[in-house]
């Protein structure tokens, strides 16, 4: 029997008790994570917390469990919330909006609309066919991967509220300004002609129509499984690298090359980040370890944004609808935004 069916067959009381039970177990596991690994590694296995091996191994196990717990919790909640929103509804909201207001709305909707990168092309065509201006469509397509729910979850768990808000705010500003700039450049001639010729046929189907609460819970659980299956290799590599940096990299190694004294640090971080294909889950353990080693937050956020927002597979998908010059302009405009944000944060944050 599917989870949705179990949910539907339960009484309201059972649903509440069941949900509350799951929440309590999650918080208990989260709380017990640090003392558990302290005890196993330092007391039972008598590793020293100050040794390279001790701190590296501790980082690996403690961070793995913590990140998996955060991902499970946040992906589930986000998926259930997002099941109330759809690309079709976003398109309806953006249709007829002018540039400016449209860019701001598109960036906001890009964050909350569930969106799989393989839908980028149909969504792009659908938006353009609905008369959404190119620049507004680009704001949506930039915000969607740039302000990523996995990154929000992990930033909040690892760094707290301040850096998380900075990340979301900066991502929105970049998406609005980059989309607006691309719109002003009048790049329609660099869009593949078939996009403008394609018509949406029949009735536009809202992918979230007819869902009941059981379906939404089921979708949340399935999404947790599917994202974890997809990202676990990145996660392990990221945490492994993080642990290595944490335990073994010399204290001043990174600050010497990418610290505040190097005026090119942000630029280098973004250039290194663009071709480095990973996702937020793989990159954040690394960001966490580098932050511990004294790298400034602006440089790290710029690095992370370059990795998640300007990935090669995404560009290959967009190549189906955009000509190379528009893709190059897209990378240049978004990349400049990310670099600007990196320098701004480094200047503003203590």
């Amino acid at each position, binding site marked *: 029997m599917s989870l949705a069916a179990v949910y539907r067959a339960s009484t309201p009381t059972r649903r509440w008790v069941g949900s509350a039970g799951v929440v309590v177990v999650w918080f208990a596991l989260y709380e017990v994570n640090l003392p558990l690994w302290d005890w196993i590694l330092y007391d039972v296995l008598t590793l020293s917390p100050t040794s390279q091996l001790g701190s590296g191994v501790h980082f690996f196990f403690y961070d793995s469990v913590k990140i998996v717990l955060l991902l499970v919790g946040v992906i589930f909640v986000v998926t259930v919330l997002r099941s109330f929103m759809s690309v079709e509804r976003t398109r309806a909201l953006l249709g007829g909006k002018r540039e400016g207001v449209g860019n701001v709305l598109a960036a906001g909707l890009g964050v909350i609309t*569930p*969106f799989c990168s*393989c839908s980028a*092309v*149909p969504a792009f*065509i659908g938006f353009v066919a609905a008369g959404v201006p190119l620049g507004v469509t680009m704001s949506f397509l930039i915000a969607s991967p740039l302000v990523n729910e996995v990154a929000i979850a992990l930033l909040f768990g690892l760094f707290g509220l301040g850096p998380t808000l900075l990340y979301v705010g900066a991502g929105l500003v970049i998406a609005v300004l980059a989309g607006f700039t691309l719109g002003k450049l009048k790049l329609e001639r660099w869009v593949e002609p078939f996009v403008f010729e*394609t018509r949406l046929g*029949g009735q536009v*189907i809202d992918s979230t129509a007819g869902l009941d609460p059981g379906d939404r819970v089921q979708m949340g659980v399935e999404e947790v499984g599917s994202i974890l299956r997809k990202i676990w290799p990145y996660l392990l590599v990221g945490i492994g690298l993080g642990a290595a940096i944490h335990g073994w990299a010399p204290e001043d190694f990174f600050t010497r090359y990418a610290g505040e004294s190097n005026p090119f640090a942000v630029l280098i971080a973004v250039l290194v980040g663009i071709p480095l294909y990973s996702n937020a889950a793989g990159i954040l353990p690394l960001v966490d370890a580098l932050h511990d080693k004294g790298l400034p937050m602006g440089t790290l956020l710029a690095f992370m944004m370059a990795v998640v927002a300007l990935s090669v597979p995404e560009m290959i998908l967009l190549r*189906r609808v955009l000509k190379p010059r528009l893709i190059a302009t897209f990378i240049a405009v978004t990349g400049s935004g990310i670099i600007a944000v990196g320098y701004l944060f480094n200047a503003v944050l203590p």
Partner: protein
Amino acid sequence: MNIKILGPGCANCVTLERVTREAVAELGLEAEIEKVTDYAAIMGYGVMSTPGLVVDETVVLSGRVPTVAKVRELLEAASS
């Protein structure tokens, strides 16, 4: 019965095809299953979020990968 899987060929579309084949087998239906990867053709069905499932030229689902049970439900509704 004619079933079409709409999608450019990413992991979600492959999963939807597998799930649909399972549901068809469980129900013992006579059905031909086609894949539609051409974007213009996908848009022709009014589908903007892939993967999409079309039964006898009617879109019954889009934008997510359903469970086998869900597809069985949809196929039963379509065949009755």
